[in-house]
């Protein structure tokens, strides 16, 4: 029960708890808070895997900007309480059962597949974290074209948001 294991299980527990709260919450604002919890615990897991820069980017962009956008939309549109329709109990139970079956199937497949076992059995590698300098070398040399393409994508998104905002007038 060394410290990395404890941190992993705590973060995994928080992530799954957040995902369950996302499904079970009655108000959308609680679902948004649960998703923020999932993202922050995933950022800690990235830190555990040695990807510091990605963890910081996840918190800054995902949990700090995208989710703020979601929270604003929920507040401004006053999205109502999630309805609980009572169509049929059979559909509800069958759905839950199939959902659980899907999740367990995916998890089992991941754990016992060939790739999972290859990866789990002693892959040689150092235990240091990834240096930002190396990541930026990759980003600006090998992956330069996708980088520029995503910056154009962001520009298109900004223009799209502006056009949509103007049309409401």
């Amino acid at each position, binding site marked *: 029960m060394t410290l990395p294991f404890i941190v992993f299980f705590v973060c995994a527990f928080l992530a799954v708890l957040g995902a369950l709260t996302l499904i079970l919450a009655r108000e959308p604002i609680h679902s948004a*808070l649960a998703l923020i919890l999932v993202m922050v615990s995933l950022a800690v897991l990235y830190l555990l895997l040695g990807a510091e820069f990605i963890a*910081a980017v996840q*918190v800054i962009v995902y949990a700090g900007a995208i989710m*703020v956008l979601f929270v604003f939309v929920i507040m*401004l549109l006053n999205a109502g309480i999630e309805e609980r329709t009572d169509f049929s109990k059979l559909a509800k139970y069958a759905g839950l059962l199939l959902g659980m079956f899907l999740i367990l199937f995916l998890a089992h497949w991941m754990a016992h597949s060939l790739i999972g076992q290859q990866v789990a059995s002693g892959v040689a590698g150092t235990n240091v974290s990834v240096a*930002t300098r190396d990541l930026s070398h990759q980003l600006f040399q090998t992956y330069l074209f996708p980088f520029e393409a995503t910056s154009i994508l962001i520009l298109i998104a900004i223009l799209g948001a502006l056009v949509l905002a103007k049309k409401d007038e």
Partner: protein
Amino acid sequence: MDFVTQHPVLVVSLAKIVGLMFLLMTTLAYLSWFERKVIAHIQSRWGPYYVGVHGLLQPLADGVKFLFKEDLTPPGADRFVYILAPMLALTLAMTTIALIPFGPPTVQWLGQSTLIVADSSIGLMFVFAITSMGVYGVALAGWSSNSKYPLLGGLRSSAQMISYEVALTLAVVGVVLLSGTLNFNAMIESQRGYYYYFIPRWNVVPQIVGFLCYFLSAIAETNRAPFDLPEGETELVGGFHTEYSSFKFAMFFMAEYANMITVSCLATILFFGGWLSPFPDSWTVMRYLPPAGLLALAVYLAYDTVVLARGIYRIQLIVVTIGALVIGLACLHPVVLTVLQGPFWFLLKVGLIMFFYVWTRATLPRMRYDQLMSFGWKFLLPVSLANLMITALVKVWPLLVNHG
């Protein structure tokens, strides 16, 4: 003792965290005293004067008052989010102090550097990550109060915070380009040395535009005057903390001051050379500046005690004088003197920047919300981008000239 030697990282980290928490809480309380005194003196009056000698026990009295106030929850408010918001704001605001270096990493105890809690190689990005989460405290507080004024105030305040966050981050990238690293201690080390033998090589000299953009964005980011429309009392009743009372309100109050401290510490590290002394290391007489300052303070307080004060103030002043004398003499011990150099200069610079903050609050009138937003997006963002491009050009110029 075996546990201590086997787990040095854990023990030293816990000790640092406990000490830092204690110091931080005291500083937050006395920052309110500092602000009230400075604003009062700028406005030709005294400020808190009666509660303790020179008003020094005023924060204690305020704390006790906050604890005894009635703790209401507005009807119809979402209880979970209502209680979560101030806790989130305060926790996030206090977490960034773990990344701030108070002194050189050569000061060590049990093999761990003592004056920084978490010396990570991307410290700057973590600080930005934590401050960008600070928007939630404000937005959720406004939403959960189930009332119009807090909702509007909270939305305005959080929109302001996320707008100025972009300009803040861009203003700082110039410094990152100059020092080539995101680690705080390495950034400070790259600011050693002098231009022309007497101007210190601090980043404020080449990056003066960056510093001004950073400072203005920081004032807007922490919702302080002149950008504090969302929480001004005459505009929106009270903004996002209208419906909060007693201890939760105190938590928002403390979170705002903690944000201010964080941003000032960051400005010191990035632009003013952190814990570096402005005097060259060869002037060893300057190492005695901290104890000299404390002993001078003790002399002044002794004069105050003997000549001016009466009654209970005299007793309080005697206590403070003896305290200053003891600490001043303790600083003459060589080990304490070496440890004290870095934090002394760091805290002095942070204090100066916070004095500027309070001075700005006392002097300038409030800006209207649309003026504020257009200033952030239409002026600060392009200027920060231009600063970044010019810095990058200057950095890359030798390579271009050689190949061109």
